[in-house]
C-alpha cells in the first residue's frame, strides 16, 4: 500500500505537485475505503490470513500475514480516516497561498512520506505478530523523520534527528523483546509472551513498554514530541493524532489485551508514569506562545490519559480499558481537528503566535468554530467523545480501589481543569476580542481544508458511536 510518488526535479513544481497530490489522495481514499469495507465485512470477527514465512527461521506460525481484530479495526479507522483527511487538507495547504510557508517545493517528498506513513501504520496495526509489527514500527520512525525534517532548516533537521534517535533507541527494546520472546518460545505471536516465565515476562513487558513509551511520548521519553512541531502542520496533525504516537498506544493496548496476567507491579508503575506524563504535559500549557507547541503538550497529556486507562485496564478494570481505547480514537479526531485548525490559522495569517493573534473569530468563523469546539472537546466537555472516555477512565480508577482511585481521579480531573482553563484562555485570546493586525486580512481557508475541518469536527462528536461497538468487542475478548 505504500505507494511511491515520483519526485519531480525538472518539472514546474505545481504540475508535478498536483499529480503527487492526486495520486496520494487516491491511495489514501483507497485505504479509507478498505478499512470501512472491512468494518462491514468483518462484523465482529477476526480476519486472519497467512502470507509467508522465512525459510531459515523455524517458527510455528507464518511470520508475515494479516490479522485484523476489533482493536486493529479501531486503529485502522483512526489511521485511514485521519490519513485521508490530512492528505485532502495538504492539497490546499501546501501552496504558494500559504502565508507561513508560501512554497510548493518538495511536494513529492512530502506526499511520499505521508502515504508511506499511512501504509506503515496500516501494516503495523494489521500485523499478526511481533516480528512483522517491528518492521512496520521502524518504518514509521523513518517516515516521521522524513516529515519532521521536511523543511530542511537547521532546527527541522535537528528535531527530526532527535525524534529518530529517541524512538529508534526505544525501538531497540522492542527488538530485544521480540528476540527474547522468540528464543524462549519459538514464536513471534503476541500471546506467546504468556508462555514466558514470570521474571522473563516482566522483562519483556517492560521492554515493550519502553518502546511504546518512546513512540507515545511518555515521560521520560517525551521530549522529541514538542520539538517535532517543525514538521508541516498537516504532518504534525497526522503524527500526533493517528500515526506515530498512536503506534505506541496501540502496542501497549495490544500487550494489555494479549496477556492473561499482566505483571501487576509494572501496571502500577505505568499508572504512575502516565500520571506524571499528564502533568508534564499540562504544566507546560500556560507558558506556550506557539499554538502548535501548546497542542504538542496537550498531546503528551492526553497520551498520559490513554496510558492511564490502559494501565488501569491491565490492573483489572474493564471500564478504564474501555475509556483508554475510547480516548485513543476520540483524541485522534479531536487532535487532528485542532492541529488542522491551527494550520488554517497559520495558512491565513502567517503566524502561530498566541500573543500576535486576536479576534480571529470575526475573520475566520469556520476555523474559529472548529478550534473552539475542538478545545471544548479536548477538555472533555460533553457531548464530545473525550468526555465519555474521561468519565470511563475516572470510573475505572474508582472501580479499582476507592481510596487510591479517588486520589487518581482527583489528579486526573485536576489535570482536566487546568488543561481546560488554558485552552479557554487561548480561545478567548485568539478568537475573541478586537481584531489584531496579524488577523486583519485573514479569511477561512479554501474548501479542501474547510471540508476536512468540518468532517473532523463531526467525527470528534461521533467517534463515540464509531468506536464504542469495536471497543465493546475488544473488552469482551479480554473478559
Amino acid at each position, binding site marked *: 500500500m505504500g505507494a511511491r510518488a515520483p519526485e519531480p526535479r525538472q518539472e514546474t513544481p505545481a504540475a508535478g505537485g498536483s499529480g503527487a497530490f492526486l495520486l496520494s489522495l487516491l491511495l489514501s481514499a483507497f485505504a479509507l475505503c478498505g478499512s470501512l469495507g472491512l468494518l462491514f465485512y468483518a462484523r465482529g470477527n477476526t480476519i486472519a490470513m497467512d502470507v509467508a514465512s522465512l525459510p531459515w527461521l523455524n517458527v510455528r506460525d507464518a511470520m508475515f500475514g494479516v490479522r485484523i481484530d476489533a482493536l486493529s479495526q479501531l486503529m485502522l479507522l483512526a489511521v485511514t480516516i485521519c490519513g485521508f483527511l490530512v492528505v485532502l487538507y495538504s492539497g490546499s495547504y501546501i501552496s504558494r497561498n500559504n502565508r507561513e510557508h508560501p512554497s510548493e517545493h518538495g511536494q513529492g517528498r512530502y506526499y511520499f512520506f505521508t502515504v508511506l506513513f499511512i501504509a506503515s501504520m496500516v501494516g503495523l496495526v494489521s500485523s499478526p505478530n511481533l516480528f512483522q509489527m517491528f518492521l512496520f514500527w521502524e518504518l514509521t520512525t523513518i517516515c516521521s523523520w522524513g516529515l519532521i525534517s521536511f523543511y530542511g532548516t537547521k532546527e527541522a533537521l535537528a528535531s527530526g534527528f532527535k525524534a529518530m534517535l*529517541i524512538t529508534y533507541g526505544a525501538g531497540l527494546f522492542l527488538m530485544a523483546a521480540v528476540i527474547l520472546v522468540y528464543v524462549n518460545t519459538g514464536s513471534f505471536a503476541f500471546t506467546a509472551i504468556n508462555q514466558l516465565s514470570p521474571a522473563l515476562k516482566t522483562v519483556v513487558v517492560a521492554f515493550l513498554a519502553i518502546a511504546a513509551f518512546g513512540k507515545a511520548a511518555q*515521560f*521520560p*521519553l*517525551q*521530549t522529541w514530541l514538542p520539538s517535532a512541531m517543525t514538521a508541516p502542520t498537516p504532518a504534525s496533525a497526522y503524527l500526533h493524532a493517528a500515526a506515530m504516537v498512536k503506534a505506541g498506544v496501540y502496542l501497549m493496548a495490544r500487550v494489555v489485551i494479549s496477556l492473561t496476567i499482566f505483571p501487576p507491579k509494572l501496571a502500577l508503575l505505568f499508572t504512575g508514569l502516565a500520571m506524571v506524563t499528564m*502533568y*508534564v504535559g499540562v*504544566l*507546560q500549557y*500556560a*507558558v506556550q506562545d506557539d499554538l502548535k507547541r501548546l497542542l504538542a503538550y496537550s498531546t503528551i497529556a492526553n497520551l498520559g490519559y490513554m496510558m492511564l486507562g490502559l494501565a488501569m485496564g491491565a490492573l483489572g478494570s*474493564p*471500564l478504564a480499558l*474501555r475509556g483508554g481505547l475510547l480516548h485513543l480514537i476520540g483524541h485522534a479526531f479531536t487532535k487532528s481537528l485542532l492541529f488542522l485548525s491551527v494550520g488554517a490559522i497559520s495558512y491565513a495569517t502567517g503566524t502561530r503566535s498566541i500573543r500576535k493573534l486576536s*479576534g480571529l*473569530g470575526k475573520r475566520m*468563523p469556520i476555523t474559529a468554530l472548529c478550534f473552539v469546539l475542538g478545545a*471544548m472537546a479536548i*477538555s472533555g*466537555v*460533553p*457531548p464530545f467523545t473525550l*468526555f*465519555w472516555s474521561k*468519565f*470511563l477512565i*475516572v*470510573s475505572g480508577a*474508582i*472501580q479499582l480501589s*476507592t481510596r487510591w482511585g*479517588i486520589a487518581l*481521579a*482527583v489528579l486526573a*480531573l*485536576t489535570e*482536566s*481543569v487546568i488543561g*481546560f*482553563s488554558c485552552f*479557554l*484562555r487561548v480561545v*478567548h485570546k485568539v478568537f*475573541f*476580542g*478586537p481584531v489584531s493586525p496579524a488577523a486583519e486580512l485573514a479569511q477561512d481557508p479554501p474548501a479542501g481544508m474547510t471540508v476536512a475541518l468540518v468532517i473532523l469536527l463531526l467525527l470528534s462528536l461521533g467517534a463515540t458511536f464509531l468506536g*464504542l*461497538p469495536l*471497543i*465493546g468487542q475488544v*473488552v469482551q475478548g479480554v473478559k
Partner: protein
Amino acid sequence: MSPMHIFVFAMSVLGLTSVLALLCGKQRLLAGGVNLAGVLLASVAMFVLAVRAMFYAPVAFSFGRVSLLGLNSEVIFQIDVLSAIFLMIICVLATASALYSIRYIAHYHEDPRRYYFPFPLFIAGMMSVVCAADWFWFLVFWEVMTLASYFLVMFENVEESNLKAGFIYFFMTQMTSMGLMLGVILLGHWAGSTAFAAAPPLLLDLATNKPLGLTVLLFLFFLAFATKAGMYPLGIWLPLAHPAAPASISALLSGVMIKLGVYGLLRIFVWQLPLGTATHGWGILIASFGVLSMLIGTLRALGEHDCKRLLAQHSIGQMGYVLLGLGMGMALMQTSPLFAMIAFAGCLYHIINHACFKSLLFFNSGAILHRTGTRDLDSLGGLAGLMPVSAACGLVGALSIAGTPPFNGFVSKWLLYQSTILGDSHKPLYVLFGVAALFISTVTLASFVKYLGTSFLGTLPERFAQQKKGGEASMEIVEIVLAVLCFALGVVPGLVMGVLQRALQPVFTASGLPGVAALPGAGTAVPVNGVAAAAVAPAVVLLGLLGCIVLVAIIHNSVKVPVRAAAIWNCGELIENERVRYRASSFYRPFKEMIHPVYEQVTLPTPHVPKFVLQIFDVDRWLYFPVARFFTRVSRAGSRMHNGAPQLYLLWQVIGCAASIALVVWLMGGVK
C-alpha cells in the same frame, strides 16, 4: 402520544430549530421567528407533560441502558411535581425570551447564528436536566446546558470585560462540574447504579457506615450546585456574566439556570438524603451561606450603577433567600415538620417568584439598553416619558422583588420569615436569620428606588428628547405578561401553596404532610397549636390598597394644589441640567461608606508553575543534552588524533601490535 413521544418530539423540535437557525444565515428576524416557533412548540409540548405530572400522576419513561458504555446507568426520565414546577418555569420563560429576542437581537451587529444556534440547545439542556432521573445523564445534560449557555454569554466577545466574564463563568462551573462528575462516579460505584432510585438507600447506608464518605459525596454535589446557584462566594461569576450576556439570556440565566442549582440541591439533600443528623448540619450550613449571599449580594447591589450588574447582584441576594428557605427546611425537618414544610414552600415559592420578577427586570433593563444604548444608570433619567409600559412593568418588578404586597415577592418572603422567626424560638440563630432577611428586604427596596428613580424618573437627558414615545411591541408584551404573573402569584397564594404542598408530599412521608390552612380568597394561614397564628389574605390587602388609592384620589382632586414647572435653581449659576442630576452613584453615599468593606473585590492570585518544576520535567536539559554533548566531545577528542601525520599512524600501529601481542599472551596463560 405517550410522554416519551412528547419528550422526544420536544427535543427533536429544539434540535431542528438549532439547525434551521444555521440555515437562516444572517437574516435576523427570520432566524428569530423560526427560533420562537420552535421554542414555543417544544415548550407547549413540555408544558403539557408538566401539567400532567403536576395534576395527575408523575410521568416516567426510560430509553434503556446504553450497554456499550459499560456503565450501570439508564437513560431514564421522571417528571414529578418538583420537576414539573421547574419545567413550567423553563417553558414560560424560554418562550418569553424567544419572543423578546426577535427584536432585541436584531440591534446587535454580531452574526445572529451565534445566538440562535445555541439558544434552543440551551433550552433543551435545561429541560432535560429537570427531567432526568439518573445522575449520570443529569450530569451530561447539565454540562450541555452549561456549554450552550457559555456560547450565549459570549455572544458579544470583543470587550475585555466580557471575555473575563465568560472565562470566569465557564471555568468556575466546569471546575465544580468535575467535582460533580467525581461525585456521580462515587455514587455509582457505591450504589451499583447512578439512578435516582438507587441513591436514598446508599445515602442511608453511608450515613451509618461511612460518614466521611457521605460528607465527601454531599460536599461534591453541594459545591457544583451552589456554584451554579450563585451562592456567595462561589457565585462570583454571576455579577460578571449577567452584564456580558444579552438581556434575553440574562433573564434566562438568572430566571431559570441558577435555579437549577437549587433543584440539584433539593434533589440530593431533600429528596434523596434520608432524614438524619446530616440533614440538620447541612441545613444550617446552607442557610448560613444563604444569609451571607443575601447580605453581600444585596448590599453590593446598592453600590452598582450598571443596571444589569445591579440586577445580577440582586440575583445573588435573592438566591440567598431561596437557600435560606432550603437550609431552614432541612434544619427544622426533624424537630418541627410544619415549619420545615413552610420553609421549603417558601424556598420553592421564591424560586417561582424570582423567576418571574428577575426575568421581568432583566427584560426591563434590556429594553432600556435597547432604547438608549447604555446600561449606565448615571447617564439615564426620565425614561418613563419615553417608554411608559416598561416603566410600569419595572415598577411592578421592583415592588415584587422588594417583597411589597400584593405582589408575589411578599408571599414567599412572608413564608420565610414565618419559618425562621417562629420555627424554633430556642435557637436565636434562626431568629437572627429571619431578622437579616427582613433587613435585606428593606435594602432591596432602597436599591430599587435607585433603579427606578434614576432610570425612569427625573428629567430626560437632552439626547433622548427628540425620540418618539413607545417601545417594541413584542418586547413590551413579554414584560406585561411577566408583570401580570407577578401580580397573580401574589394574590392567589393559596392555590400555589396547594401545588407546593403536593410537591413536598414525598419528603414528608415519615411525619405526614402538615397542613397549612387555606383562607377564602386564595389566602393562606400558618396554624400554631391549632390557632392561625399568621395569615396572609391578599383580598384584604387589595381591598385596603384600593381604599387608599380612592382616598388619595379624592384628596388630590379636592385640594387641587397648583403645580408650576420651573427650571432647576443652581444658586444663580448657569449649569446644564445634565450635570446637576442626582445620579445613581450618589444614592446612599453615607451608608455605602459605612459598609465599604462589602465592596472590596478580592482578586484571586493567578497560579504560576514554579520554574524548577518545569526544569525537573525537562529531561532534555539534565539528561539527553548533557549525554549528547559528552558523546560529541569524546568523538571530537578521538578525531583530533586523526591528523594525517604518518609518524602518528606508525606509532598507533606499534602500540596496537604490542597490545595485541600482550592480549594473546595473557589469553594463553602468560609466559611460562
